[in-house]
């Protein structure tokens, strides 16, 4: 839609190339090395995902971007978007990640969001007796348990130590020795044992999340904020919102929020195309166009919440405004295997396999590969 709008305004023709998300990273990498990649591409910031931007920048496959792009990079997140002082990716918008909450279903069940996770866990049993669940989890798809663990880690790890990833990279800390990460996974185990997840959660897929959240049989789930917006748009009358996961007793609310997508230019593109792509990125950086992108994708403006904030994110406005949030942790992790180890480990904990120590040791091993 934005490409069409840009073409109408400038007369520049843009040809889009849709790719399926599950093979996007692999396809783009192959195209980049084969010399037939698009001029402008979308990646994930950092190095922790299969479609991450930094490995491509290190391999000189991407073009350094201009000042307009650099100005959009959130303070403290520079290392996710560039190397050696150059910026290679332009962030699009902020996607908050906490717990996706169905306030209507919660109200019907007589449940209010507890102040801390102990209260939340205590409320799970009575809710399960009514045939409902506090959370719906797609246990058979590792990224969902992985996202849950990261959402919980916001208050257990990153609220107190925002630079925990940098400390891990320096070798000063480790997952296995981190009290915060142990508490994070212990919370998952406690929730599982208390019946906080729907029946059969260990074998459930994403369809269970869609059904549970839209039909109100589960009060919450763990989804990127933009997915909550999509579910609202697709289901008349549904008004999901994003809430921070309750902290441990005595803790402060904290959230994850970062730009999960960023735009980059192909270093092998012809000069006129590079110039055109730079101009498009500058156009995208203009506030009204950035706001339009945010509106379409269902996130928060990269500059922070404003008067156009999507109601989905209203409960976390204060946290966003006060800066009480950290980027999605796995963006800063050195390779996709780290998140995979965490996600499959948490999947195992839900299925009654393995223990917290072995999961965290596995994550450390993946980091050191």
């Amino acid at each position: 839609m934005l490409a069409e709008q840009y073409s109408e305004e400038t007369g520049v023709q843009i040809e889009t190339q849709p790719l399926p998300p599950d093979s996007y990273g692999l396809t783009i990498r192959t195209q980049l090395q084969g010399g037939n990649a698009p001029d402008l591409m979308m990646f994930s910031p950092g190095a922790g995902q299969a479609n991450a931007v930094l490995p491509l920048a290190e391999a000189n496959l991407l073009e350094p971007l201009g000042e307009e792009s650099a100005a959009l990079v959130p303070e403290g997140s520079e290392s996710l978007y560039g190397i050696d002082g150059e910026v290679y990716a332009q962030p699009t918008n902020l996607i908050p990640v906490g717990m996706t909450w169905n306030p209507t279903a919660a109200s019907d069940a007589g449940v209010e969001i507890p102040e801390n996770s102990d209260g939340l866990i205590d409320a799970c049993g009575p809710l399960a007796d009514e045939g409902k669940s506090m959370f719906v989890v797609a246990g058979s798809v590792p990224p969902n348990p992985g996202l849950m663990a990261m959402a919980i880690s916001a208050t257990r790890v990153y609220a107190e130590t925002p630079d925990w990833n940098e400390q891990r990279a320096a070798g000063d800390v480790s997952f296995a020795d981190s009290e915060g990460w142990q508490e994070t996974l212990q919370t998952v185990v406690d929730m599982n044992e208390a019946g906080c997840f729907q029946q059969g959660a260990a074998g459930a897929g994403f369809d269970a999340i869609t059904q549970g959240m839209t039909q109100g049989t589960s009060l919450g789930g763990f989804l990127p904020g933009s997915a909550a917006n999509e579910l609202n748009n697709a289901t008349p009358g549904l008004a999901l919102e994003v809430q921070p996961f309750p902290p441990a007793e005595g803790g402060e609310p904290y959230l994850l929020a970062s730009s999960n997508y960023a735009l980059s230019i192909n270093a092998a593109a012809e000069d006129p195309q590079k110039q055109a792509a730079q101009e498009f990125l500058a156009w995208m950086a203009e506030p009204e166009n950035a706001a339009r992108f945010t509106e379409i994708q269902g996130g928060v403006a990269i500059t922070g919440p404003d008067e156009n904030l999507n109601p989905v994110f209203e409960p976390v406005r204060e946290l966003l405004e006060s800066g009480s949030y950290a980027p999605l942790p796995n963006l800063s992790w050195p390779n996709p295997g780290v998140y995979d180890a965490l996600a499959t480990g948490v999947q195992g904990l839900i299925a009654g396999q393995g223990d917290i120590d072995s999961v965290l040791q596995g994550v450390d091993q993946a980091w050191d590969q």
Partner: protein
Amino acid sequence: MGTPQDTGPVVRGTVPAAGSGRPARSRRSRPLITYGRWWWALPAILAVLLIHYLATAGGALYAFTNWTGIGDFDFVGLDNFRRILEDPASIGSLKNTLFLAFGFLVLTNVVGLLLALALNRTLKTRYLLRVLFFMPVVLSPLAVSYVWKFIFDFNGPLNDVLGWVGMEPRTWLADPTLALWAVLVVMAWQTTGMVMVIYLAGLATVPPEIEEAAALDGASTWRRFRHITVPSVRPSIAIASTLMLIQGLRVFDQVMALTGGGPAGATETLATQVYKETFALSNFGYGAALALLLTVIMLVFSVLQQAVTRDRS
């Protein structure tokens, strides 16, 4: 000298054709363009060598590198193989692969042979039943796996049936002890029909007269099966077991569709781990080492299997 049915010498032109009275054309005087020249296969041989073996050998080289799929790489010798041996996940994948391969080999051959024996001669509805048992073979493994995923779902029909008889529902595909068996059942269910057909072809070569004669001589059903049927279908056993072993060792579709290798790697096989390491985690060097290991394992077991099932008579 060949059998009366052996037309080879005639076709090859080494003996006179019956009734022709003319001497055979000598090898030296054969025309250049004729049927059955070996070099007719040359384009296919070259294509196989270039596309299959050369590409495979090229890919195998990456097993000795640390390539991530992007940029440069270094040769790391046997590091990737050492890592495989030290990685519990890879050892688990190897164990799962061998369990599925040999479970699949045994299950498909035993059930396939039993089906073939049952549907060989006497049953009137045998043709219909053969079709029914063979039908899953023609379906896509992915489609079949998704149907079974629905059956195994926590809210699916299998748990419904268990509920009717008062049993607790199970998370079949998320239970570390059950998931691998579930995958094995799906693999065997889809492929047993193929094995049945192979054994039916073998059983068609068993002369009924010999079995009848043995029966008249007082041989029991088991003795007739042991001493007449089994020796007659030995070539079918060799073919079916080889195919099933190889198919079992390279299992991929069913695992990906049913469990994705989970929970926590409980159903991961070498083939799915090759895919995951190479394409999802960008460890091309490590993935290539796993693929090379899988190839060697398939080669070794195929040779061993051929040795075990060869005709020693």
